[in-house]
């Protein structure tokens, strides 16, 4: 048994509880948080690939204890407990999310004199939830952790104490309280048809024709789960609320929230692909929402004067690229989507934290009131610019490699128009970012611009530098991850 697999979930949950208890003691909370935040990516690195059967419910053991009238039936092959599967692909995502969480916590400590136990509780609880979501091979268990993630996301917005954060939190809750039960209903339809919520069991039952793959209940189940997936990822029609959520959190919180969304999108996207890829129009539906996400979010970002909202829309638009890769549905396109998801976690974290320093310095995110910030910290300015290049897909950064893969995959699959669209959207992203960057950093400083802080904390500069290095390394040596993604996508197809 590989104890490190459940530890990836247990450690952040324990950390969450402990930091909440010691909320009043800054030194203890900081020490525990940093140790745990370093430990999580390390556990992901050292854990061996494997399967964890909770409650000792190994199917081979259970099969030997079955009543005679169940032997040979479909139910006899079912997993009776929750199963976690840890492969190299989960290792990459959990490692990167752990790194982003560590850097976000570090930035939070540097920018906030008095740390909040509940805020850190929410970060660690959310981290535990998305990790469990990634590992779980059980769609109901995924739903449970998705709901916990959604609650922690709301908590992070509320704890951020920004203007109108309660209104946005409530809107997100209301939409989530509709999206969540729809997901549950979808799971119910699958359970009612197949009798299991384990993904492998469902695939086994469908692929061996124990159930009619085109039964209305399975198709309705797919539609409802697709609705839940759109909500979890923030794809249209949920793109405006998702971008509002990112813009209302603290910059380090936004970095984490976006990471959570990408992991939710990945986990449910893979589960949907495994179960429902045979359904006619599955790919068309995903492509449709991908195009909507790309076009709507990028258009809205181009019109924004609030830079936090602009980055939030750009982040949601980038999710469209991930969905596009899933929708095209070839081995190479899925690998490209996974690579894009990896890059999205890192690049948007860089931009939220890096551009967030402008808000830290001036307490405003309105680009019309900003200017001349290159004079405050030129290093940070350059790093933010390079982060924007990575987002837009400029070489030699990771965003370029994943978008190139995506365009090549679209062309190989005969979707020339999608390849052209992806390139056009990337160009718009580039110009939108450069326009905002020019306004905030390069144009003359307005006379009435006042500073809340004079300097950017070193820890924040360090965090952004680490994220930029990851972007560069993944851009120059994409094979570190793409080989794993291509192998995984091959297995999926």
């Amino acid at each position: 048994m590989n104890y490190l697999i459940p530890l990836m979930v247990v450690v952040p949950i324990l950390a969450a509880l402990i930091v909440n208890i010691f909320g009043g003691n800054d030194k203890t909370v900081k020490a525990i948080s940093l140790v745990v935040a370093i430990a999580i990516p390390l556990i992901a690195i050292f854990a061996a690939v494997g399967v964890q059967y909770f409650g000792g419910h190994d199917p081979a053991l259970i099969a030997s204890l079955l009543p005679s009238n169940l032997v040979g039936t479909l139910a006899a092959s079912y997993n009776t407990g929750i199963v976690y599967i840890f492969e190299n692909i989960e290792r990459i995502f959990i490692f990167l999310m752990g790194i982003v969480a560590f850097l976000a916590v570090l930035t939070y400590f540097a920018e906030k004199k008095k740390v909040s136990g509940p805020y850190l509780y929410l970060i660690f609880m959310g981290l535990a939830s998305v990790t469990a979501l990634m590992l779980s091979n059980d769609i109901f268990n995924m739903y449970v952790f998705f709901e916990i993630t959604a609650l922690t996301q709301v908590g992070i917005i509320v704890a951020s104490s920004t203007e109108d954060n309660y209104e946005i939190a409530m809107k997100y809750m209301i939409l989530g309280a509709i999206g969540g039960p729809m997901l549950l209903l979808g799971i119910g339809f699958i359970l009612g048809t197949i009798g299991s919520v384990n993904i492998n069991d469902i695939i086994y039952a469908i692929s061996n024709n124990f159930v009619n793959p085109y039964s209305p209940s399975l198709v309705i189940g797919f539609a409802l789960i697709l609705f839940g997936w759109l909500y979890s990822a923030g794809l249209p029609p949920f793109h405006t609320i998702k971008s509002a959520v990112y813009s209302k959190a603290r910059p380090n919180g936004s970095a984490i929230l976006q990471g959570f969304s990408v992991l939710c999108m990945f986990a449910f996207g893979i589960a949907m692909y495994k179960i429902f890829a045979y359904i006619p129009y599955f790919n068309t539906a995903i492509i449709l929402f991908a195009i909507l996400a790309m076009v709507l979010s990028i258009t809205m970002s181009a019109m924004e004067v609030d830079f936090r909202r602009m980055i939030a829309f750009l982040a949601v638009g980038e999710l469209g690229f991930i969905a596009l890769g899933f929708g095209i549905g070839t081995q190479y396109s899925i690998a490209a989507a996974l690579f894009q998801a990896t890059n999205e976690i890192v690049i948007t974290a860089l931009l939220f934290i890096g551009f967030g320093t402008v808000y830290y310095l001036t307490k405003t995110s309105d680009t019309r009131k900003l200017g001349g910030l290159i004079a405050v910290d030129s290093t940070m300015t350059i790093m933010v610019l390079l982060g924007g290049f990575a987002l837009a897909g400029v070489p030699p950064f990771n965003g370029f490699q994943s978008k190139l893969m995506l365009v090549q995959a679209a062309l190989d699959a005969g979707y020339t128009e999608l390849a052209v669209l992806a390139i056009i959207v990337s160009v718009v992203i580039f110009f939108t970012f450069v326009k905002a960057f020019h306004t905030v950093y390069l144009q003359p400083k307005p006379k009435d611009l006042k500073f809340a802080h004079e300097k950017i904390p070193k820890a924040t500069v360090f965090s952004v530098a680490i994220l930029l290095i990851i972007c560069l390394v993944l851009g120059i040596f994409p094979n570190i991850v793409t080989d794993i993604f291509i192998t995984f996508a091959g297995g999926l197809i």
Partner: protein
Amino acid sequence: MDFQMASLFASGAFIIIGLFAAVFIDNLIKKIIGIAFIEEGANLFLICLGYKAGGVVPIFMLGMSADWFAANSAYPLPQALVLTSIVIGASTLAVMLALAMVLYRKHGTLSVSEMMGDEK
């Protein structure tokens, strides 16, 4: 109409009524009640799936044979799932009500359109 079918119709009614309230009613508390309806409708739907006419409670007792139990007990998985789902629903509801209290203190109204009207 048997008991299972009646319960399925009831769960459908719960969900439709809840969706109507959550989408069309302006009062925040009524919206939240609507959302609770949706959640309970989904739970009732799940519970119905495990129903077995004439079945026994899925608890293995002394004196039962394994074969008889497997043939006659209700399916326990939906019940276990609903138990978890109820806890999640209660947590979601608690957070929404807490937010509703804060928003009422801030805006002095429970009208969602008035609350969100001045939100940028």
